[in-house]
């Protein structure tokens, strides 16, 4: 069964970055921000992080865990993992197609 891809609008990219960050285990908000910054080279603000997290939680792609010292970790759900894999496969195909076209143009 193919999961429906939610429409996150301008939060689509931050949502993808968060899902990737959570793919190796639960993390709290600040750890996600640091992880995203390391991975993408760009900072993610707390406002953007929570706007995307709320959407991901509403769609059942991540779940909140019990807070530890006010820091609440979030975990990727099975649906979230499936959605992430699907998106990454789509991006890979897109990248490969782009590279093929680029090579065809090269002399």
């Amino acid at each position: 069964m193919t999961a429906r891809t939610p429409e996150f609008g301008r939060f689509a990219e931050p949502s993808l970055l968060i899902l990737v960050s959570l793919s190796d285990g639960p993390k709290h908000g600040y750890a996600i921000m640091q992880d995203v910054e390391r991975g993408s080279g760009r900072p993610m603000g707390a406002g953007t992080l929570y706007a995307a997290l709320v959407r991901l939680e509403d769609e059942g792609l991540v779940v909140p865990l019990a807070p530890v010292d006010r820091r609440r970790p979030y975990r990727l759900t099975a649906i979230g993992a499936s959605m992430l894999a699907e998106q990454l496969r789509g991006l890979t195909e897109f990248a490969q197609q782009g590279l093929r076209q680029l090579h065809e143009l090269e002399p």
Partner: protein
Amino acid sequence: MRSVLIRCYPARWRARYGDEFLAILEERPLGPYDVADIVLGALDARLRSRRDRAATPQGRGFTMSLRLGGIAAIVGAAILGFAWFTVFPGAISMEPIVLMAMFVVGLGALLVALTILSAFQARTLPRLVWTAFALAAVGVVAYVVGLLGLIGVTEGAVTSGSAAETAVTVAYAAGGLAAVVGFALFGVATYRSGELSRPGAVLLAAGPALMVGAWLVAFTVAWDLGGLMMLGAVGCFLTGWVVLGIAAIRLDGRKPEARPA
């Protein structure tokens, strides 16, 4: 600064995410980019919160109507109660035209309340609610038309003994009876749906039933006793509307249990 920024978010969002969000903000100093990002995030949360409320069964559009229905019920009952009070000997003397206008406006307000509260309750008991609504609404309109027609007869505008007089008399009697049955049924439907106020529903159903009893007693047993019963019937009916109106306004003010963002 951080607490000011957090207050930009809706209360329900803060209740759910406030602590963990503040913990993140305390991790590092805030720069202009962070402040702008948080303000935009708060704006997004407020827009989503508004949209989510509108999407709930008790969403803003509907609850605004529910509040309007509650206000119409209270205002209508108050106007009719005042108009009824002026009829008693020794009470405030009013011009008949003013009294009639109050009567029509009061009934009109109750019709507005009836329409809105019926639409609200029709989700649970559609057939009963809409039957009650149709009977009461058509009955009230026919009753008012009949009453105005009968006033026309006494004023000489409608010829006595004509077909027009018969028509307005039938409209008055049949309309009154339909309205009484319709309002009683609406009280029963309101009690059964249990969404507004059951005590109010009982009062609303008891009022019309008592009215029928009052008419029977007045014309067959004792006029004064019938009048006394009618006083209680009208009191029950109008109090029932006020109680339902308050319940509708309270229900409107209740926070919907929607997701926090």
